[in-house]
């Protein structure tokens, strides 16, 4: 716990709070804007909850557009401090191995990312009620999507933590994040194996609602695939950080 507390202490002056706020407000703002632009205001009283569908579809789109880059920036800043401050060696000579340090970083940054992702959903539900959507919240879809996107965001966070730890030049890591963003946004144009093999592809797989023809409908979230991503991600992260622990300085 002390190592995790240290990770929160290292966040001072790194503007990670600001980045988390950008992640939150960016997704919420873009979703709300997209909702209004889609004429959500005209469907507030629709008993079938069309306005909620618009909001949820917008949330899926905005998360894929904003999260990959911001999460990469958060991971990169937190790890870069270790490279520039000789922090890996400082920790190792105090008995904390690099892998353990990475796991502590994941725990600390995971709290930020999860909180921000949860807050995105809650704030958008509040906005929905605030603007006067009359129908009840589609709890199942909303909860399912929020859970799935948390897993995807954490998987992306884990990948970027490892990349930033291995590659000292953080510009390269941000370049990879741009490729990730491309995969997240244009997944439908990419081979399915590529989409399934990268965590960024899951932003397009867990879309909660979309147009099928002219109708906006709720889509089934592939929970099994998301579970597989979570399990494989956790396993790989543990395995790779365990290798870091055995690495020579």
């Amino acid at each position, binding site marked *: 716990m*002390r*190592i995790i*507390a*240290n990770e929160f*202490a*290292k966040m*001072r*002056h*790194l503007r990670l709070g600001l980045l988390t706020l950008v992640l939150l407000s960016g997704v919420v703002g873009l979703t709300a804007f997209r909702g209004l632009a889609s004429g959500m205001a005209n469907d507030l009283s629709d008993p079938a909850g069309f306005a909620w569908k618009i909001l949820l579809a917008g949330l899926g789109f905005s998360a894929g557009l904003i999260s990959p880059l911001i999460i990469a920036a958060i991971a990169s800043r937190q790890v870069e*401090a270790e490279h*520039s*401050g*000789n*922090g890996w*060696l*400082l*920790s*190792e*000579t*105090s*008995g*904390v191995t690099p892998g353990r340090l990475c796991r502590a970083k994941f725990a600390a940054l995971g709290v930020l990312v999860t909180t921000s992702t949860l807050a995105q959903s809650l704030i958008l539900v509040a906005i929905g009620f605030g603007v006067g959507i009359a129908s009840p919240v589609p709890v199942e879809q909303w909860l399912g999507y929020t859970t799935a996107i948390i897993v995807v965001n954490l998987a992306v966070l884990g990948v970027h933590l490892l990349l930033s730890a291995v590659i000292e030049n953080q510009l390269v890591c941000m370049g990879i994040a741009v490729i990730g963003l491309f995969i997240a946004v244009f997944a439908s144009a990419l081979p399915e194996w590529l989409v399934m093999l990268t965590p960024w592809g899951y932003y397009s797989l867990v879309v909660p609602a979309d147009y099928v023809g002219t109708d906006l409908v709720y889509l089934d979230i592939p929970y099994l695939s998301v579970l597989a991503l979570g399990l494989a991600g956790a396993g790989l992260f543990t395995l790779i950080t365990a290798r870091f622990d*055995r690495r*020579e*300085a």
Partner: protein
Amino acid sequence: MCGTARLRDSGDMDTVIETSHLTKRYGSRTVVDDLSLRVPQGCVYGFLGPNGSGKSTTMKMLLSLIRPTLGKVQVLGQPMTRASRRGLLRHVGSLIESPPGYGHLTGRENMRIMQRLLDLPQRQIEWAVDTVRMRDQMGKRVRNYSLGMKQRMGIALALARQPQLLILDEPTNGLDPAGIEEIRELLRSLASSGVTVMVSSHLLGEIDKTATMLGILSEGRLLFQGTRAELMAASTPDIIIESSDPRSAQSILGQQLDCRSDGRTTRITNADDGSTAQAVSVLVHAGIDVFEVRRDEQTLEDVFIDLTKGGGL
């Protein structure tokens, strides 16, 4: 120094570091070769050698940051291995490669990170900061420190655990003469408070005045280990003979000894007292007047350069 739980064991605690046949190879390249170090308790051990001689690799093996290819390391009387290092490192402070410190944080915030990492009491942090005389700089961000301040900050981070052993890898690198003197003074004061200090350098002059024990490394091999006086005694300066006919003296003595003449004196290399007496006797019997016989004056720097150049005493 404040009181702290000392590491106790049944091992030989007169020796704080002991290595036996320590070797590190990367592929076919041997970086450290069959090193047997002994660092006595309470000394300042100057670990000397040219750049690339294997000092940093050795220090990393002492801290178990890299694994030896062969040989063993004992620190504070216990084997230093990956399994034991976490416990041992609570008693060993170190500064390896560049000085550590998170640049975006202040000195105080950096010390707080070390305090939390090792669960240290506040008084130890205060002591470490005071020891390196950084109290007035604690509110500044580390990225705004000078190199000397960063080095002192790094030493404070190593000292915060109140170590029994401090391992410093070239702590004077890049410092101006005033900074070097400050570090020297700090090492002396630490040693006088009971901390064993092992400090590496590629310049003898930087630690000559501070070290009470010297270990000299070249191309991964330990060429000498002992006190300054032992080092001087172990090297044999040339015998210089002033005589009435230096050239004839050289041709007579050259049949039995390694000698040369500069036209004014005759110089004999590697001559002990017996062969010196014999040389004088030979010259006198040959009818050459001997005016003066003396050993060449040799500085410690000369001995160090000869050692690292020639590969042995």
